[in-house]
């Protein structure tokens, strides 16, 4: 039986026209553009995303130069982490990689941080099975994690506003870098 709602664009529009942002949201944006002031939550998200994108982009370039491990590492599609206010952030590397993963052409994995310091890698193995493995962040101070990463060729650039102390920025960078390093180790182990 053909459902009458399916090709009915009128019903679709009627239904989803009720999905609207709150008037406060628009007012908040207008206020921001007038005063150039942003709420802290917004800055934090942008900051963290910026840090992640830089870290991943560099790691991907590095991965591409490796042998079999590089092939797998090249397929990273996403990285999920939590900002300090507990909100999740997921960064996709680029749309081409994402599309390829959706079409099942490449191996891929994503990293999901479960809580403070512990992450989880989800990847598809060569047989197409989804494998989930927990990863632990290195038990080291932030500075050491970042130094180790730099030696491996991962340069993490952190940009932030005056709302954040240097320690906060460094800790955020170290968390992502630590997870990347742990992911890289796992990928190398898998490739071996």
């Amino acid at each position, binding site marked *: *039986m053909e459902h009458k709602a399916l090709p009915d664009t009128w019903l679709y529009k009627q239904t989803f026209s009720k999905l609207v942002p709150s008037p406060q949201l628009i007012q908040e*944006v207008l206020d921001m553009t007038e005063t150039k002031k942003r709420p802290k939550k917004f800055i934090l998200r942008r900051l963290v995303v910026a840090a992640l994108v830089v870290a991943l982009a560099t790691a991907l370039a590095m991965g591409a130069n490796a042998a079999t491990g590089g092939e797998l590492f090249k397929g990273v599609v996403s990285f999920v982490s939590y900002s300090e206010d507990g909100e999740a952030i997921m960064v*996709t590397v680029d749309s081409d990689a994402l599309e390829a993963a959706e079409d099942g052409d490449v191996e891929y994995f994503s990293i999901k941080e479960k809580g403070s310091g512990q992450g989880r890698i989800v990847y598809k193995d060569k047989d197409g099975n989804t494998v989930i493995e927990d990863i632990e962040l290195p038990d080291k101070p932030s500075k050491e994690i970042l130094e180790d990463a730099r030696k491996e060729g991962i340069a993490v650039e952190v940009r932030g506003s005056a709302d954040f102390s240097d320690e906060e920025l460094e800790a955020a960078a170290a968390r992502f870098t630590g997870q990347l390093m742990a992911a890289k180790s796992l990928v190398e182990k898998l490739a071996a």
Partner: protein
Amino acid sequence: MDSDAFAAAAERYSGTIYRIAFHSCKNQADAEDITQNVLLKLFRTQTAFESEEHMRRWVIRVAVNECKKLVCSAWFRRSVPLEEYAQTLSLEGPEESALFLAVMELPQKYRVPVYLHYYEGYPVKECAALCGVKPSTMQTRMQRAREKLKKKLCEEEREN
């Protein structure tokens, strides 16, 4: 863009951006964040828009890209269950509720194309360009989305 022009554009496109974001994230908080990001990008852009349609396409493209960057789900976020959220939307009658929930049950990659096609009225080829995928891929996605919607809505109808 000057303040008056931006205020008018924000008023005009905030709904579209929010709906695209909600179709992608199924989450009010994320959808609002994405809406905010896209509007701020619109404010800061140096792009000289040739027409209203040019600006509309730019906004949709940026919204789709923002959604890709911040793919999210109820699994990751504290969110209100969709049934509860649907009740706050003042949907009229079971048909609208069923359609809302059926669309939201579609896999993530199908929801935005369905919105662009059915709500914004873009043909499949245009949806492909706006989502940055090949037309053939979009054709397949739309076909699968329609099949899934049909199945779900027919099941709903039988149950009622």
